[in-house]
């Protein structure tokens, strides 16, 4: 009897959070899966069930494949670059050097700044002719480049912004993990004659693996989720050269108002993220030492 009452109490306490989550997360998610199986209702034309029709359309959509390829390249560069940069920065500011608090803050600043503001600043850096980048390169006699306007450079230019933005965030996790590694491990290794590199490879890196997994999962999600700078800097252009999946979904859904097709793309994006997360956990989990 009292157990029943306790579980009723517990359920009631959980109810507000469940209602909010269900209303704004779970129901829309399920609605998306279902919506992907119908046509988009327009005016007095109601939605019609077409099964996998939207997915068939997707396979024939060249812009989707372009966005997909862009996103793969984007992920393949931003993830390793930002994670490695984060680790290097964390190791740098973990050392005992003067002014390291200021340095830590400097590295972390990009994370705090709103992406919209950051993208606007970078827009100036990339401006052809009088932008910072061209001015500096001009000193070395390099010709003007339209970094964001050229198909060859636009994607890499937005990748640089993303790496710059993300690395500081990941650095904080690495820094926290580094500070939990007891100092006497380093001393014990020093007495055994281990070089700094050996210690890093045999002790620091393995002890950072749980953090690395966490950071990797976040980096993967970020590579598919962060498109603010695309909106500000290129709007997917030129000629879809910087169209990422989420940006493409945004365009389909809120500029062309094709909600059914947007739902289809969203389902695909979620499936990709789920698979990537599962792969990371299954493969890396076994090789990780958790304390």
């Amino acid at each position, binding site marked *: 009897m009292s157990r029943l009452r306790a579980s009723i109490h517990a359920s009631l306490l959980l109810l507000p959070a469940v209602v909010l989550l269900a209303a704004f997360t779970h129901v829309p998610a399920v609605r998306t899966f279902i919506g992907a199986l119908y046509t988009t209702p327009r005016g007095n034309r109601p939605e019609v069930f077409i099964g996998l029709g939207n997915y068939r359309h997707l396979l024939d959509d060249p812009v989707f494949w372009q966005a997909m390829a862009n996103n793969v390249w984007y992920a393949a560069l931003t993830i390793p670059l930002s994670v490695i940069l984060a680790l290097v920065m964390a190791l740098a500011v973990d050392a005992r050097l003067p002014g390291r608090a200021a340095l830590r803050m400097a590295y972390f600043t990009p994370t705090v700044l709103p992406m919209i503001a950051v993208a606007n600043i970078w827009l100036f850096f990339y401006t052809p002719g009088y932008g910072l980048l061209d001015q500096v390169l001009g000193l070395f006699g390099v010709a003007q480049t339209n970094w964001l306007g050229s198909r060859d450079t636009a994607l890499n230019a937005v990748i640089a912004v993303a790496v710059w933005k993300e690395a500081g965030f990941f650095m904080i996790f690495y820094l926290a993990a580094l500070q939990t590694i007891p100092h006497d*491990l380093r*001393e014990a290794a020093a007495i055994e004659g281990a070089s700094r590199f050996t210690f890093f490879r045999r002790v620091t890196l393995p002890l950072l693996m749980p953090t690395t997994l966490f950071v990797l999962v976040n980096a993967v999600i970020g590579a598919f989720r962060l498109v603010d700078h695309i909106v500000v800097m290129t709007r997917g252009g030129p000629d879809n050269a910087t169209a990422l999946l989420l940006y493409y979904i945004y365009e389909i859904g809120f500029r062309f108002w094709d909600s059914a097709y947007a739902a289809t793309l969203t389902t695909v994006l979620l499936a990709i993220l789920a698979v990537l997360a599962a792969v990371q956990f299954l493969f890396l989990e076994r090789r990780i030492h958790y304390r």
Partner: protein
Amino acid sequence: MAEIVVDNLTKVWSGSPAVDGISFTCASGEFTVLLGPSGCGKSTTLRLIAGLEQPSAGAIAIGGRDVTRRSPAERGIAMVFQSYALFPHLSVAENILFGLKVRRVPRAERDERLKRAAQTLGLTQLLDRKPAALSGGQRQRVALGRAIVADAAVCLMDEPLSNLDAQLRQEMRAEIRGLQRRLGMTMIYVTHDQVEAMTMSDRVVLMRDGRIEQQGTPAELYDCPASGFAARFLGTPPMNLLPAAAGAGLAPDVPAAAEGSIGVRPERLRVDAPGHGLTATVEAIEYLGADTLLTLDAAGAKLIARTDGHARHRIGEAVGVSCAAGDLHFFDAGSGRRVEANGNGCNAPERGEGA
């Protein structure tokens, strides 16, 4: 062959000396304990010998070679840390072999040495475990294993037993001592526990405020403490120290000094009927089984006496406390150092700093 000579070693931390010009020699194969209260500089001294800190002045020689400016790895030492410093992600075997792998010892020899160390320490069944799956005592053994596979002639230990329970500590004391003897290692062992110092060492270096208070064999320190501090630091319960005026009545024919203090070990006190020596009241009785500790009050001066078996006394009872004149130790009022006044066999007490 692995004699350690510490000469006038000094370490200054931001203006204040942690280790203040200390010198001692630890003969090859000898077990030396650096003893002292916390903050006395004993751990810093050990870390200086290990090369984990750089001395502000002075020199360290190991095996006749000046290693003052050498890296820890070049000193030919092994070290056991208070926290054990085991690598949490490596198994017991990998932890023990870490140094040999770093030094690129051939695989066959590595395996052989691991087998021997594991057998010596009873770790054979645990080689695949991670440190987190070991008890405190087992971790301690792994740390010892890492020290002995190195085959270093010198082993440094920093309070290795402080994280163990009393029972285990007693076992490990004997085991570490046995291991050191068997392997012929030159050992420097840091502790604040005088029991460890008394039971394990060939030689004790007692430190206080960065200086050596006294050094010698455990018996020398116990029988002839060089200062009131040394007298109180070794022995449980510690030596009784009384103002000279109050203590003079303990033994006949003691020159009544007006200043300084008189010390006497609890087991040297005789407790009789009033009339013998000082008159005192029994304040407390602690029965320990083999003996009993009596806390006595002699006109305001507190004394602890160790008597055999069950006490025949009652709390509040008046007794006479006395001892032989030779059992009294005299300490100077100002410096607290020993003053020779009678023939109790302590000639010219050995002082630190080569004085």
